[in-house]
């Protein structure tokens, strides 16, 4: 079964043990900053079950930024979405990588506040949360440019200027 990938900030998702103010079954509010919806939709990426496109998607996402930086993501089994009553729609992404945009971008649609919180609970309990370091991101972008997947002109100038180092 494939996965859905959502970029996050890992530090917002650290598990907090023994927090007196947090009721059983509830989740802290900070992770919700990574699940900001627009028009009740949330942009995610489909990752094949063998993860063969994981680096491709990570590179595409990193290439949208103003600076080379680490990229944190959560990877959630797509099978969990029907359980949360969350619908998925195939839409086009907005990265400098056309293949990634067309092939793997998805939106989670018709999201209510309740569904977003349930999604946050699932990410906290069941998702893999990983960090791709800045050095690796630099290497992946250089590779994507060399292979022609990403046009350098589509990168922010602040990134293009740092590609030599």
């Amino acid at each position: 079964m494939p996965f859905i990938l959502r970029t996050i900030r890992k530090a917002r998702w650290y598990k907090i043990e023994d927090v007196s103010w947090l009721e059983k079954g509830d989740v802290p509010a900070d992770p919700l900053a990574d699940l900001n919806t627009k028009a009740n939709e949330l942009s995610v990426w489909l990752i094949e079950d063998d993860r063969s496109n994981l680096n491709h998607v990570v590179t595409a996402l990193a290439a949208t930024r103003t600076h080379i930086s680490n990229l944190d993501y959560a990877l959630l089994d797509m099978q969990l979405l029907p359980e949360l009553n969350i619908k998925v729609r195939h839409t086009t992404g907005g990265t400098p990588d056309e293949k990634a945009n067309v092939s793997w971008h998805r939106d989670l649609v018709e999201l209510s506040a309740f569904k977003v919180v349930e999604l946050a609970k699932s990410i906290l309990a069941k998702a893999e949360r990983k960090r791709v370091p800045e050095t690796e991101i630099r290497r992946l972008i250089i590779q994507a440019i060399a292979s022609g997947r990403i046009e350098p002109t589509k990168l922010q100038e602040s990134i293009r200027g740092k590609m030599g180092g």
Partner: protein
Amino acid sequence: MTERQFEHNVVPSSEFASVLPSLTAWQVENSTVQQERPEEIDQEFTILFEAAKEQVFEDGMESEFSKELISLVKKYGDAAMEVVADLITNERVNAEVASEALRWLGRMDHSTSYHFRRWLLERSLGCSSAMVRDGAALGLASLNDPHAILYLKQAILREEHAELCEDMEQVLVQLENAR
């Protein structure tokens, strides 16, 4: 930095103080910073950090906060770093904002504040907030200076969050490879 500021504002007072980097050697080598700083610098940073609480930060994306932070550090140099160090090490600012500041302090190009920025990043590995410690580790990764290896190793030994520990180890490997 005045003696009073050194004693009361910047030096860590926590239980980790003994294993955290001292500013003394750096301070002795850089006697030019032993001056009073204008009050408006404190005010500018206090306002900047306070306003940033309303912003949602994303990795690798410039923000009004990051642009202004870099601009003020370049403008005021070590006097600016004194204020930032005071705000972060004494945990007087929002943890997410402090974390964001540390990321950009590691990333920015500004040779004259380099040692102070590195000191602050190493020192912030001992802050009580995991989010701030993460920002410090990411700032050190951007700085890519093996000087931080010892402090990272100590931070890893103390770290209670398994995920953060894993991320710090990733930075440690990077810095060891940079030697």
